[in-house]
């Protein structure tokens, strides 16, 4: 091999390596006769959403420009860092072993709940799952939740106290607070599915899946759910990109 050919080869290898680093995270390859699902979360900004206008603010000594959108009411959506995205994978030919929950504590302070969504898992053979609610307000609160499969909970949590909430039915619960009707958190409870919760700048990786057909459901807070059916085969990884956006909603009256 000539030196020139060696240089070309090295450059090509470097480019391939860089391209690979940029698009594919490092996950272990499938083992044995099972497969994998990798769900990449793509939070897209709303098409055409304008930036906040800037206004001049005059101090005694200078003039600066600030957003005219001041205050909590105008806090802007940031699709690049969506928090508490829930991904649930169900199906396959055998019952899946549930993954450990990633988020089991909900905090309540004067700004509200610290999470828009939570996930807890009823482990195989278990009868219930639980999460804790830390009431950091100065008053006691009554918290309640309900789902369609006859699952419900309610309880009073004293000011500053930590309460444990048990849930025995899988499904989606809407969690509310009697003293403040603006509060709302969605609790996902799974009992036989693989599930993941995290931010949209991460990937949801599901390993060791028996071959078969799976349904992947992605629930971003305050955005449309995303679903996809995928066939998992032995020794392969299925990579999906879930678009978390309002851009695909039917447009009406624009």
């Amino acid at each position: 091999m000539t030196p020139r050919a060696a240089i070309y080869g090295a450059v090509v290898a470097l480019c391939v390596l860089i391209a690979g680093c940029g698009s594919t995270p490092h996950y272990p390859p499938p083992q044995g006769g099972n497969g994998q699902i990798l769900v990449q979360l793509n939070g897209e900004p709303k098409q055409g959403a304008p930036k906040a206008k800037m206004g001049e603010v005059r101090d005694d000594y200078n003039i600066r420009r600030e957003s005219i959108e001041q205050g909590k009411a105008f806090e802007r959506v940031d699709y690049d860092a969506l928090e508490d995205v829930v991904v649930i994978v169900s199906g396959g030919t055998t019952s899946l072993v549930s993954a450990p929950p990633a988020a089991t504590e909900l905090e309540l302070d004067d700004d509200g709940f610290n999470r828009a969504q939570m996930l807890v898992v009823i482990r195989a053979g278990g009868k219930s799952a639980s999460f804790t609610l830390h009431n950091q307000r100065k008053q006691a609160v009554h918290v309640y939740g309900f789902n369609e499969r006859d699952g419900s909970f309610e309880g009073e949590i004293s000011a500053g106290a930590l309460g444990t909430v048990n849930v025995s039915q899988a499904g989606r619960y809407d969690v509310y607070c009697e003293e403040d009707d603006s509060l709302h958190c969605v609790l996902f409870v799974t009992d036989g599915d693989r599930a993941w919760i995290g931010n949209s700048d991460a990937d949801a990786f599901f390993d060791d899946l028996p071959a078969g057909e799976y349904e992947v459901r992605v629930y971003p807070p305050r955005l449309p759910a995303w679903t996809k059916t995928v066939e998992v085969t032995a020794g392969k990884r299925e990579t999906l990109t879930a678009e978390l956006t309002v851009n695909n909603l039917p447009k009406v009256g624009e």
Partner: protein
Amino acid sequence: MNHPIKKLSLLVLVLGATAGLTAVVKAQFGVRHLPDPRYVNSVEYNDGDWKWADASKGNVKGTLSFSARRPAQPVVVYLVRLGADDKPGEQGVYAPPGMLKVSQKGGAFEPSFGVLARKQKVEFLNDEEKEISHNVYFLGDIEADLGIFDQGQSREHEFTEAGEVSVHCSIHKRMDARFFVAPNPAFAVVEADSASFEISDVPAGKYRLHTWQKQKRFQDFETTVEITNGNTATVAVEMKR
């Protein structure tokens, strides 16, 4: 140009462009979620050709009881007219209630909760005092995007189908509201400080009475009720966990 370094630079440039193009192609032809362009989760009702204005009418009234502590939230009681097979039938032709006007001033929907009759219109008005843009999109049983509109502009939307709708702004994360769209004008909103309701001037016929809760804490109740001309049917609504 024959210098090896220049050739190397050219090769890097070409490879870089190829990688960029590959990324664009992947983005365009990768897995995409394309929602059904109709209101997939909503309940579709037929109007038929009979008119509410011409129908003989009766009333329905009742009380609500709760098996556990009731939250300080409204409950909606609504009627679905049944057909000969006891399934939802023709709901009739009626004049929908007037347009609901929703302000967006101060980065908040006002009112932030509303109960509508199918075919009722809602106007979303960007009445901000400053040059602030807003968007309106719906999630839930009815999903749609009304677009982005600037200060002083508004958008109207007619809810032609029934269901539960959460309303959001894609620009501001704390702008939320909720609507419930009833299948017809035969509904009552039972406020938190009340446990009784009356729905008047309902065309005679067989109906299924349902409840809907703004913040759900009980199983929704439903029962069949027969409304006859000039009479008032009575229903005991039991909200259980």
